[in-house]
């Protein structure tokens, strides 16, 4: 994989994700009510909020799985809500999405799970030899090369998260969206995953949004944090800055 090994946040160019005044409701349930966000190249941004606050909806809007009601949503300078299916596929090929439950394909081995998106993507053509190399490299990056022929049912929760990350990395994305990457894991494994997110950022120079309510994960893996409360970005700062704020809503996360 030809990734930039040197990690740095690029504030000079346009943000890779630019959201202004985003609204999304499901019936009478108004989830996002004018949410704003800017993600810069090479940056890890943690979005924290209570359960049901719309964190997962936010990243599903970004990847085009959920249509927005109103607002500006630019990803790599493209308005996601105005793309046709082919254009959306092209954009998605530059974005990795790590699902909360890993979403590994049950009926396939780890190798097949990794090969699946690459073999089928209409815009990426690779030979069998390249495919083998990419699978090996992606599994090495997450430290699970020995699991190549295992089935998802044979993997632990932490291993599943790592394999899902490898499946994301194999597409060489510019942006990675993590949906609760440490949920359901013990503290030790959760820390390993948080450090792995950092390692991916440093090694592959990806920009990431990390949806989490795990404070330790946000502290380890993010450069900046947003508190999502009542459908808006209630507060936006670094972990240290947020920790010193006296606001009750913010401090509720730091208890």
């Amino acid at each position: 994989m030809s990734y930039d090994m040197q990690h740095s946040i690029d504030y000079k160019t346009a943000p890779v994700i630019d959201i202004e005044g985003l609204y999304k409701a499901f019936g009478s349930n108004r989830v996002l009510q004018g949410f704003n966000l800017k993600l810069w190249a090479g940056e890890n941004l943690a979005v924290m909020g209570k359960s049901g606050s719309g964190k997962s909806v936010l990243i599903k809007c970004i990847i085009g799985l959920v249509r927005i009601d109103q607002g500006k949503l630019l990803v790599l300078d493209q308005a996601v809500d105005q793309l046709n299916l082919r254009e959306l596929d092209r954009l998605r090929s530059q974005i990795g999405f790590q699902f909360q439950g890993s979403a590994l394909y049950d009926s396939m081995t780890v190798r097949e799970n990794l090969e699946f998106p690459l073999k089928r993507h209409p815009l990426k053509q690779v030979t069998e030899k390249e495919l083998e190399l990419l699978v090996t490299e992606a599994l090495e990056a997450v430290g699970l090369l020995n699991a190549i022929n295992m089935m998802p049912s044979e993997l632990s929760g932490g291993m599943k998260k790592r394999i899902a990350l490898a499946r994301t990395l194999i597409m060489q994305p510019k942006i990675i969206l993590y949906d609760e990457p440490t949920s359901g894991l013990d503290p030790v494994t959760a820390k390993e995953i948080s450090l792995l997110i950092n390692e991916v950022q440093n090694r592959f120079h990806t920009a990431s949004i990390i949806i989490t309510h795990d404070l330790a994960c946000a502290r380890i893996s993010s450069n900046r944090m947003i508190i999502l409360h009542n459908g808006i970005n209630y507060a936006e700062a670094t972990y240290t800055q947020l920790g010193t704020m006296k606001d009750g809503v913010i401090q509720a996360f730091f208890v």
Partner: protein
Amino acid sequence: MKKLTRFFLTTGEISEFAGRYFREAWFPPYEIQELLKQCFLIGNKSFALVSITGLIMGIVLTLQTRPTLIEFGAVSMMPSMVGIAIVREIGPVLTALICAGKIGSGIGAELASMKVTEQIDAMEVSGANPFKYLVITRVTATTIMIPILVVLSDIISLSGSALVEYLKGGVSFELYFSKVFEYLQFGDLLPSVIKSFFFGFAIGIIGCYKGYTSTRGTEGVGRTANEAVVIASMLVFILDFIAVLVSDIFYEL
């Protein structure tokens, strides 16, 4: 009123889903390997069940009809009567109903489970087309395999009937089958095979539709499997009714 509205809405959604199948099935990429795998799974896993029920149906039908035919002195008509009944009606409908139960529910539960665990979303965000990989392959596989299972079931049913005739009336297998084909015409076989394609398509599309649009988490998986069987079975009867009406027009011509 609400139920009626939901019925029409669901019918519309299923039609739209089937329409998407026809729009996307012709264009690459073609998931040939997955299609062959699904054909194997559907054919291989259903063959034993279809064979056993077909055999029993052939035996039972012959045993039940025999006394009446003897009473009317028409026992020699047994092969032709059983042959026409099985090939035209009992074979296709029985096989389709069994497959609706086994395959329809299996596909529904599998896709619903994939939906719940976000595997379908994962395929979509990776740029792969989950509809092509999951739906087109399964619907095509059921459309291909159910007519094959129907023909095999017909053969096994007739063999069961021939066995009864051999044991009870001393009729040889050669004589039994020559009598069957004396009366059975191509016009009996063709509508039966054609309607089996429709049965296969209906079973596949209902299973996939229910699974692909499943909601309500894990509870939804069981509900999806159940609904897939009920709707697919009902659709088999409706399609059979239409097929019989259409074939009847051709018989009269």
